[in-house]
């Protein structure tokens, strides 16, 4: 079976600095792959290359077997790669629906000629999408600042789900959250997996990684230090891979 996402011999250098060196990995549908590694190991460079922020210096990225090259995050998004940032890319003063549709707002006509924002559609889509994530909201018009950190993370994920992301990239999705909220995000990731999407997530938290991922890819100084199935590895082994030795 062709994997959803395949990264082949990817390298990226910034001037003389080799941030990523000849990295090969893949993500299958319904699979959660964790990226681990110490600071500066190249995790962020890798996801930025996949999400279209950086152009790789060499190597290729394949989506469903087809080679792709993104010149902007927008292009990656159009191909179904959605990135969820650590610092929550939400506009706090807007409703869930408005956030889901931010930048792609649906319009309708009032009185048959006046184009207006289709708030009904936005609210309806938001409600359905959030229900898909088992997150039930009554106040569809309330700004997202009224919701908790985990709920807001769910909104960010909901946006990706609504736009039919096949691959979700999450950079430290649990970092800014309290423990109960972290568990909710982990459970959201389980749902994405059950829906057959591919998930790549960066985390420093081994507990999270072991709770949710199928495989773990450990990077060290821009190279692959090891790749393990979660079922076949232990915390100790992963830590050893991360720090070397």
């Amino acid at each position, binding site marked *: 079976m062709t994997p959803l996402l395949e990264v082949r011999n990817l390298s990226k250098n910034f001037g003389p600095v080799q941030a990523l060196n000849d990295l090969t990995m893949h993500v299958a549908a319904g699979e959660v792959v964790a990226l681990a590694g110490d600071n500066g190991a190249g995790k962020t460079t890798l996801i930025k290359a996949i999400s279209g922020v950086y152009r790789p210096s060499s190597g290729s990225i394949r989506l469903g077997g087809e080679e792709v090259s993104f010149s902007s995050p927008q292009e990656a998004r159009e191909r179904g790669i959605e990135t969820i940032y650590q610092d929550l890319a939400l506009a706090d*003063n807007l409703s869930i629906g408005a956030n889901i549709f931010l930048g792609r707002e649906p319009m309708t006509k009032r009185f048959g000629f006046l184009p207006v924002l289709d708030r009904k559609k936005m609210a309806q889509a938001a409600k359905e999408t959030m229900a898909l994530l088992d997150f039930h909201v009554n106040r569809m018009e309330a700004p997202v600042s009224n919701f908790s950190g985990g709920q807001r993370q769910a909104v960010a994920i909901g946006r990706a789900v609504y736009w039919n992301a096949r691959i979700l990239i999450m950079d430290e999705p649990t970092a800014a959250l309290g423990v109960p909220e972290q568990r909710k995000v982990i459970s959201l990731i389980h749902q994405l997996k059950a829906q057959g999407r591919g998930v790549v997530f960066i985390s420093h938290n081994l507990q999270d990684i072991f709770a949710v991922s199928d495989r773990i890819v450990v990077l060290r100084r821009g190279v692959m230090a090891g790749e393990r199935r979660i079922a076949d590895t232990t915390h100790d082994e992963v830590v050893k891979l991360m720090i070397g030795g």
Partner: protein
Amino acid sequence: MTTEAPGQAGGHISPPADHAEKSRTVVQRIADLRAWLFLAALIIGFEVWSRVSFGGSFIVNPYNITSIAIFAVAPLLLATGQTFVIISGGIDLSMGFIMGLAAVVAAHVINWATPTMGMPMAVLFGGSVAILVAMIPGCVNGLLVSRLNVPPFIGTLGMFGVARGVAFLLANGTTVPVQNSFFSALGNGRILGIPWIIIVTAIFVLVMHYLLSQTRFGQHNYAIGANAQAARRAGIDIRSHLLRLYILSGICAGLAGVLYAARFSAGAAQAGEPLLLDSVAAVVIGGASLFGGSGTILGTVAGAFVIAVIQYGLVFINVEPFWQFISVGVVIIISVLIDQAQRRISGGRQSE
């Protein structure tokens, strides 16, 4: 927090259900409507005073209503543009002198065109040219803020000086009278008892309300004010948005300038000088936050009327005019205090 199943890996935990607190929404409603409440309180206050001391009505008096509305026209037009800019997280300090510049340009062009074009066409032509000219400083503001990352406060402060200088140079340091009776008829004429300039302003403000509340442009404006990075990541072209935004602000000031010239049959460079801070005050009283991300045109309308009612009402009840400054100042402070109290009560995260 809701009760949770033990956090077994793989066991699904549903996010907490949504608890809408009724009291919270009531407080928010009141805070959203505070400008209208202020306005109602002021009108009742002046009404009582007027009945007690003169035995006449303050508000049930078409003359007073029209005068207040005419009073509010220029500050309101500046304030509508300012509302957009403040919601985006910026401020436009140059609006006052852009208005003056537009008034002077309108006066000159109408005078120049009247002999060749005839009166009505000259007015149309002069008004259009003035608004087009007002778009130039707006465009420069927009380029400074969007391309060169100049903070709006500084960029528009620079433009404040430039527009002021150009306006006074064009006016030769004096007031430019307009020789066009059609223009002054428009500026002071009425239809069905309602002055033309009020009708023009009302239509313009309605269009702006539509633009802010019902279009993508307005929606993106709110998003940029709350979280510019999120807006950029969502694919919104912030640069072109900001450019259009400051041009829009220039258009508002330009229209205010043209209506000023029509009303007084003259263009004056200093026409908008005292109005700039009134426009910011109207926006703030109307419920916008200077940090960006909140505010409405309807709130700004109420804010502009609060100021106009205070100014006109105090004259009406024969109080020394200096009390205007004090009362407007107090209203601004109370308005901001209500805003902060509401934020504290509603527990909304403030954007960092």
